[in-house]
Each structure stands twice: as C-alpha cells, then as structure tokens.
C-alpha cells in the first residue's frame, strides 16, 4: 500500500484526527546508492491525542500490520510558525514485515505543553527511542514506564539537541572548552 492509500483509509476511519498527508519533501530522484530503499515517503500528520488509537490500529489491523517501528526521532523546529515558542516534532518510521510497506507519521506539540502519548506499549522498541528523545530533546512521553535519561548523565541540565541549547560552562568541575 502506498502512503496515499494508507492516508485515505485512515482519514475515513479517524476523520480530523489525521491532519494532512505531506508530499514527499524535496525532489528526490531515484538514483544514488540508496536507490533500492523505497522512494521518499510522504509524512502523515496526526494529532498527538489520537496517537495511541491510530498506532494500535496500524499495528493490529490485518490490512496494515505495521509490526516494526524502524525509527523514532525527535526534531526541534524553533519558531515554526514564526513568532511562536516553537515546536517539537516526533517522527515515526513504520514498516510491515508481512506486507512490505512503510509509512512515516509525524506529530507535533508546542514547547509549552510538550506531552505526547507513549507508544512503548505498542512497540517495545519505542521504549528506548522515547527515552532518547526525552533525553536529547526534552520531549515528554505520557505513560512511558520509565522516562529517564539514557545517553546523558542523570544530573545533566538541559536537552542538547534543542536548537536553543546553551552549552554548560562546566560539568562537575570539568570546564567546557
């Protein structure tokens, strides 16, 4: 199934909770070493609140059966749209081992109230991915069983992959050069 077909089916089932289907960003011609990897995928934007429902459906329904969460990434988009505090986006790359199709889902929250429901109960792989996104970007996943830092030290201040991250002057007496 292509992203567009999946989007239409989801739209019929969930209505306005599925916001848009982005066109594959950028002109990506089928060349280069990565050619075999399927063409650039469109991203489906969904509302954070609808995540658990939509994700469970995507995983369990036989026509989709997205059993594999390939990647979960957080991205910081400060000031989008301009003048606002900025947004954090979580990107889910899903793959179905039996149907061999892929999809990209995105959900966005403003930095003020950055709570996104967890999907770690749907794909256990999300457990560590979400901890990483929390650690490096400060995205809080609601309902995660153990949302603690994973790569940075427990007492680290701030989230380094934020675009407005301030480098610390020192850490336990070790100066930052």
């Amino acid at each position: 199934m292509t992203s567009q077909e999946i989007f239409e089916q989801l739209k019929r089932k969930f209505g306005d909770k599925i916001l848009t289907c982005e066109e594959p960003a950028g002109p990506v011609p089928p060349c280069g070493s990565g050619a075999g990897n399927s063409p650039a995928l469109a991203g489906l934007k969904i509302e954070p609140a609808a995540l658990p429902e939509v994700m469970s459906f995507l995983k369990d329904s036989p026509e989709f059966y997205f059993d594999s969460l390939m990647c979960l990434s957080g991205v910081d988009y400060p000031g989008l749209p301009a003048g606002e505090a900025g947004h954090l986006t979580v990107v889910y790359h899903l793959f179905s081992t039996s149907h061999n199709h892929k999809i990209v889902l995105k959900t966005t929250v403003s930095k003020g109230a950055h709570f996104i429901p967890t999907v770690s109960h749907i794909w256990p792989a999300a457990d560590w991915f979400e901890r990483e996104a929390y650690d490096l970007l400060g995205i809080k996943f609601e309902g995660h069983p153990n949302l603690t830092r994973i790569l940075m030290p427990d007492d680290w201040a701030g989230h380094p992959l934020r675009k407005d991250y301030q480098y610390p002057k020192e850490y336990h007496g070790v100066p930052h050069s």
Partner: protein
Amino acid sequence: MNEMRGIETEEMIINMGPQHPSTHGVLKLVIKTDGEVVSEITPVIGFLHRGLEKIAERLKYQQFMPYTDRLDYLASMNCNFAYAATVEKLAGIQVPERAEYIRVIMAELNRIASHLVFLGTSGLEAGAWTPLLYGFREREKILDLFEMTCGQRLTYNYYRFGGVAQDLPAGFIEKAKEFCDYFEPKLKEYNDLLSYNRIFINRMAHIGVLTPETAIAYGVTGPNLRAGGVKWDIRKNEPYSVYQKFDFDIPVGRGEVGETGDAWDRYMVRIREMGQSLKIVRQALEMIPAGEYCAKVPRMFKPPAGEVYCRFENPRGDLGFYLVSDGSQNPYRLKIRAPSFSNLSVISVLGAGTMISDLIMIVGSLDIILPEIDR
C-alpha cells in the same frame, strides 16, 4: 533441612560493568540475582556518548564522514557506505558504477572482518583463547587490503559523496583474489575448531532463545533476527547499490543443535554469512567495470530542503539515518538509528531467568558494539 528454614535469603544486586571484559566496551548491566539465577537486568548505557548527532548539526555534510567511522569502528566501511548513500539520496547524486563495485567489495570485506572479531570474542567468552588468534590472523589480511586502499586500518574515511576517495591501488584485485582463495578453507577450520566443538555447543545451545516476534517488536535486526529463522536482509529485500547483481544466500537459524534463535544459531548465522560475503566479493572482483571512481561533487554543497530515511544492512543489523535538510550546508537533523541500540534493548527479556554465566554468552552472542549505541 529443618535448620535451613530459618535462614533468610534475599536477592542481590550486582553491577556487571562498566568495566567488564564481556561487555565489549563500556556497558553496565545492573542485574538482580537470586543465587546464580538472574531475575532482572537493567542495562545502563551512555558512557561513550560523544554527541555525534549534535556534532553533525554543526558540520558540513562531508565533514561528518570521519565521525561515521566512529559509530561501529569494527565496520567503518559499512557506516561510511550508509552515510554516503543517505546523503546521495537526499541530494540526488549519481554514483559511477565502478565506485559502487568498490563500495560493495569494501563493505563485504569489512563484514567478514567484523564477524571475525565476533568469532574470536565468542570463543573467548566460552573460555577458549585460540579462536581469537585465528580470527585476528585472517582479519589482519583484510586490514592489509584496506591499508593498501586508503592508508588506514581501523577508521577508513574512504567513501565520498558520489564514490570513494581514490581508485583501487595497482595490484589490489589480485591481492583480494588471493585473500579469497586463502580465506575459503579457513571457514571449515573455524567450524572444526569451534562451531561444532561439543563443549562450545553445550555452552551456546538452548540459551537466550530470541523468537521472531520478540525480535521484531524490539527492533532487533541483522544476524540476530535471522537466527530466529526470519529470512530478512536489506541487501536482498530492498537492494541498494549494486547488490541485486550478485548471487548470494541469506543464512538463517534452523536450530540444528538446540532451538531456533538460540545463541548458537546467532553465532552460526554469522559464520555462514562470512561465506556469503566472500561469494559477493569474488563476483564483484570479476565483474568490476572500468571507469570513474567518483562523480564530480563539490566539496561544499547544499542539498535541497527535505528529508530522507534510509536503512542499510550492516554487520550488526539495520543502520538507519534519518536526515533532515533545510537547504543549508549543514544537516538540520541527523538521527542515527544504530542496530546495536535496539539489539541491546532486548537483553532484559532475553537474559531474565538465565544463569549469570549464560548471560555473558547471551550478551556476547548479540554482538553489540557500544560506540554506536551511545553515539
């Protein structure tokens, strides 16, 4: 028995690592044990965190290439390959055919070298010293080939966008063929020495059985997934570069000496994969065309705004790069989905209920490497 009743027993918490020979780097496993039996495992990672994803945002695209060497340093060529191909896809760069062949030859030789280290350390974990020496003996020859090609023996920095840094040196093809002839009989030697050794089988069979369902749910990929009987290999299922031109099989675990997906299957899949990689190298050496080794790509370039997610078959599983470009000279965001990261996360399921000594074998059989977990 009666006087034993009054003795209080309680679970004990042991830190395995961060410095422990079986952790292949700096990894801490906090294990709760009931005598010799492990009841709970909490991996603690991040000791080698260097902030590679943050560094990527501050560098130009090409400048990040040497950092990919330091992801999985036992398979630097494969990491270079994955990063180069991801950026090429984003920027729409064509790669000359000769370059693709050189890339595949290097990546497959590096896969063999990486699995040879695995062979050596697997033996070591079971208390056998000899396989380590055998594995490193052959690995040296591969490193000689790499040194001849790019001057480096560990961190190669050999791939460029559009091809590779320089053409194959004079005499490389002959030397590589010589290596193939030398290496082929060695696989049998490993099997005689270690794989079918009764003591080793008793040690490895039936422990740490990873079912395909658990593996997929936890994002486990590569040989660890294939050991469970899943015939899934990106080189075959979503062929990139010129992999579709080669004839090779995907070895999967069959539970020959124990259960499908046990530690021995994970070990054996890798031994068999070396044979398949060798087959690819032989074909590539025969088929390599003449021509350019690198397309003309300016050193500083701006890919169009957009994003791409590509995954590649590394020796340890799917290495994925999620690359977001805002049209500037630097990546806007580079998320590295390292295979060992997900492969390690399953250890709390796999190791629960085993003996401490088996846990060491299970961690070893997952063939994790810490620098790519911690990034």
